């Protein structure tokens, strides 16, 4: 069976690259995408892993983003990275299907723990 992959989505390449480096430093494969739509276009059914999504307030107001997000959460467990203290975004995200929310700035270990948890959920759901 294919190895699970951590799919990282962020409009900011620096953010996605830094998360990719972090994930790969623990010997897990990671792939980055500039947008949710790019991820959905590239996703092949049967791929396992989880989604790490860098989200901003303006995304939530966007109905297209919402539709993409719902579609993505149906494929893989999704965890969101939001600005510190942004409770409305976090609430919105969990109600829309995110399995966890990590606040910026985050301790690397916190993010890795959440990712590991998400990967485990995916493995259990599709094992």
């Amino acid at each position, binding site marked *: 069976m294919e190895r699970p992959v951590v799919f990282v989505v962020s409009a900011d390449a620096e953010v996605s690259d830094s998360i990719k480096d972090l994930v790969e430093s623990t010997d897990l494969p990671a792939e980055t995408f500039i947008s949710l739509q790019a991820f959905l276009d590239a996703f092949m059914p049967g791929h396992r892993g989880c989604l790490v999504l860098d989200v901003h307030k303006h995304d939530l107001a966007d109905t297209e983003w919402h539709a993409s997000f719902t579609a993505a959460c149906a494929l893989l467990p999704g965890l969101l990275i*939001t600005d510190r203290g942004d*409770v409305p975004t976090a*609430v919105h995200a969990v*109600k829309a299907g995110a399995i*966890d929310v990590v606040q910026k700035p985050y301790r690397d270990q916190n993010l890795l723990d959440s990712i590991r948890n998400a990967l485990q959920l995916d493995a259990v759901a599709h094992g």
Partner: protein
Amino acid sequence: MDEQTVFIIDDDVAVRDSIQELVESVGLCAQSYDSGQAFLDSFQPESSGCVVLDVRMAGMSGLLVQEKLNESGAGIPVIIITGHGDVPMAVRALQAGAVDFIQKPYRDQLLLDSINNALTVDAAFKRSHTRDKNLDQHIAALTKREKQVLDKLLGGGTSKQIARDLGISPRTVEAHRQNLLHKLEVGSVRELILHRFVRDRGE
């Protein structure tokens, strides 16, 4: 269906009164409690409506009230409001089943929208729950023969097969089928199978 009540739990009297006023101003029924314990002591699990619950209270915390509600099996939707919330708390509350998590200060319309949404959720849940209960009662009231025929119909049997299995005529099977569908208030066996399927999946 019973009238829906918005149950308000907050140990701050100003907040309690203000939410009660807001709810009543749009014609909804409200009931307030100054503590989680007071609410749980008087709450009937079958009550219709929703709960608006503050997280940080001097006595029992809102999250504990939510936990106890879950344990009691009450299906009533819970909206959490808080002046001290943070992201981890919000995530936890939602994962524990809260339908919304609202920070103070909030726009009145936001809380009202959330309440209306919760009431809609509760109405749907209660309707389906009532249908299930009625169906169970009707099934219990069937005659022994009708129950036999029902079991075989649910198993996919045709009138001819059922007639053979039970040693009666196909016409008699048909008569039983009509009678039991009428007693169960469903239009067809397919409807009954679908209903059961939906219910079992929800368990």
